[in-house]
């Protein structure tokens, strides 16, 4: 036992070093900013902060595409970081502000309060929060009229549902998600006033297995068209539909028609690259004013994109309904609930 004692005494400091470096590796690989090296000191620098993985094939992936588009079209130096906990948001913003970034996108509603808090310390950096509505001289928001698209999706769902029960599955109950589901319901009811909407929230944006269970529970209650707005977790909703075959899914944020083409009627797409380019151009040219960009159907930023493979399932009557609803929305005669 003596031998063991001496050995473990010698080992203590070395061991703690090892554990600390383990932590360091973990932290770097969790939240470390991945910069694309393009050494130009006064280059236009744009950063993107997301809550989830940019490999979600949805909300975050679209923003990452936008970031790449800004790099390619405007020659910007770009960086992307994923926030692990809400408490880190301020710190993410401060880091980019301190490094002299010209434009920082906080990709989601949850970024607007941190942006307002941090912005005064970095007057040369513009903070733009997607889905945010609060502004300051160097803070802007983008309000996507996603509800327009969700309303159109509702029309398709209302017409496609045989059971008269449709579902909606979200990640967490953020105001934009709630608004989208309301618009979806209104769209469905415009076709079939008796349609019933089941709503469920996964509680996070990553647990694809739980999202699949939510979908299966809705299917067991008769839902045959489900609108998913749960980012990466939403992949589980597609998976549930694939196994029950008769159920149809409507994707959101990115064009998700390719995720499971055999069950996807279409997607409500936010053309994030287009929206982000509009803002980045303004910031680069100095035209940016702290205000909320309201982008939607009219700007080509929010669109209903039908899945060509299942297009035959959407009747000509429904297509006509979609066209007239689109015209009414553009003419602002139809007020979509938000």
């Amino acid at each position: 036992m003596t031998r063991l004692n001496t050995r473990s005494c010698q080992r203590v400091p070395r061991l703690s070093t090892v554990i600390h470096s383990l932590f360091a590796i973990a932290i770097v690989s969790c939240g470390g900013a991945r910069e694309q090296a393009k050494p130009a000191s006064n280059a236009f620098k744009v950063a993107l902060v997301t809550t989830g993985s940019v490999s979600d094939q949805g909300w975050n992936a679209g923003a990452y595409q936008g970031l790449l588009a800004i790099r390619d079209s405007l020659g910007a130096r770009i960086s992307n970081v994923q926030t692990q906990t809400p408490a880190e948001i301020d710190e993410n913003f401060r880091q980019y502000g301190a490094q002299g970034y010209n434009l920082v996108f906080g990709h989601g509603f949850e970024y607007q309060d941190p942006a307002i808090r941090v912005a005064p310390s970095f007057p040369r950096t513009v903070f733009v929060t997607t889905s945010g509505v609060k502004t300051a001289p160097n803070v802007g928001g983008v309000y996507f009229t996603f509800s327009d698209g969700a309303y159109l999706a509702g029309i398709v769902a209302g017409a496609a549902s045989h059971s008269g029960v449709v579902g909606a599955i979200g990640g967490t109950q953020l105001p934009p998600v709630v608004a989208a589901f309301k618009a979806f319901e209104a769209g469905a009811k415009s076709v079939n006033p008796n349609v019933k909407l089941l709503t469920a929230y996964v509680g996070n944006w990553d647990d694809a297995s739980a999202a699949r269970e939510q979908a299966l529970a809705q299917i067991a209650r008769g839902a045959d068209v489900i609108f998913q707005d749960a980012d990466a977790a939403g992949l589980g909703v597609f998976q549930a539909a694939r196994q029950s075959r008769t159920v149809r899914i409507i994707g959101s944020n990115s064009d998700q028609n390719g995720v499971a083409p055999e069950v996807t009627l279409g997607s409500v797409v936010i053309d994030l690259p287009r929206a982000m380019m509009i803002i980045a151009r303004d910031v680069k040219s100095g035209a940016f004013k702290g205000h909320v960009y309201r982008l939607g159907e009219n700007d080509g930023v929010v669109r209903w994109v039908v899945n060509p493979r299942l297009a035959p399932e959407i009747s000509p009557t429904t297509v006509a309904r979609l066209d007239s609803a689109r015209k009414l929305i553009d003419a602002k005669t139809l007020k979509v609930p938000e």
Partner: protein
Amino acid sequence: MIDGTSAFLEGVVRTATPLAFAALGETVTERSGIINIGLEGSIIAGALGAVVGAGYGGVWAGFAFAAVCGCAVAAIFALFAVTLRADQIISGTAVTLLALGGTGTLYRVLYGSAGAALNTPTLDPASIPLLSRIPVVGRALFVQPSITYVLYVLVPVVMWWTYRTHAGLGLRAIGENPAAATAAGIRAKKVQFLAVLFGGLLGGISGGTLVLAQAGTFVEGMSAGRGFIAIAIVVLGRWNPLGAALAALVFGAASALQFFFQATGSNLPYQLFLAFPYVLTLVALAATHGRTNSPAALGRQDFEQS
């Protein structure tokens, strides 16, 4: 439309399966006196391993590689916590963080920002003749993906091994009274190392189940705290393999009830339902407090000197 009760019960078993695998492995680990908080890391590594393995050789290659990856993560933990006798809680936390961040990074390296999509092959539910026709619970228990049946076999085997074999006795002896066990000639570190590896193996299969029997794809952070829930399940199951399996069912029921309530279109705040499994954890832990018989040397790192 499937009838409501049956759909609910099927959901219970589906949700419980990955939890039961992880908890069964952790039961064996904890019986040796080691508490592996890094179990979450093994689950997420297993999930990524499952996608990679299944891409090469189908579903069962996916499970095999998931088990290997779960084991590999557990080996890192065992190196620190068993071989070097570092603090188990700190090592476990570091391993979890390392695995959560590392799998995300590796996933993007392997599949790019587009991800693996839903191209991973998955297990369809397989119906067992006769048994699946038992009223009420038949479909729930015997129309499941075949990995669930592996679990049904594994639970009694682990039970028998722990309580009826000489090796199982050695395992329990180390967890209860390491000094006496060492004096009796049992090589504590070797047994503990293997017990941690076994826990990692089942943790990996738990992650594999999430992918290959459920979600059909990998999502960063998709383990979503199941490793920690499994550790609570071990306590609720009173460090008994069968107890762990039954406790996993209780948790599965709490989650499935949550899915069920939301799907009924109730207007109650959904956060209330989401909190349900965790509230249940607290209640269960409080209720069994004082009556639990944890291995006496659980979590201790100094015992060779005692």
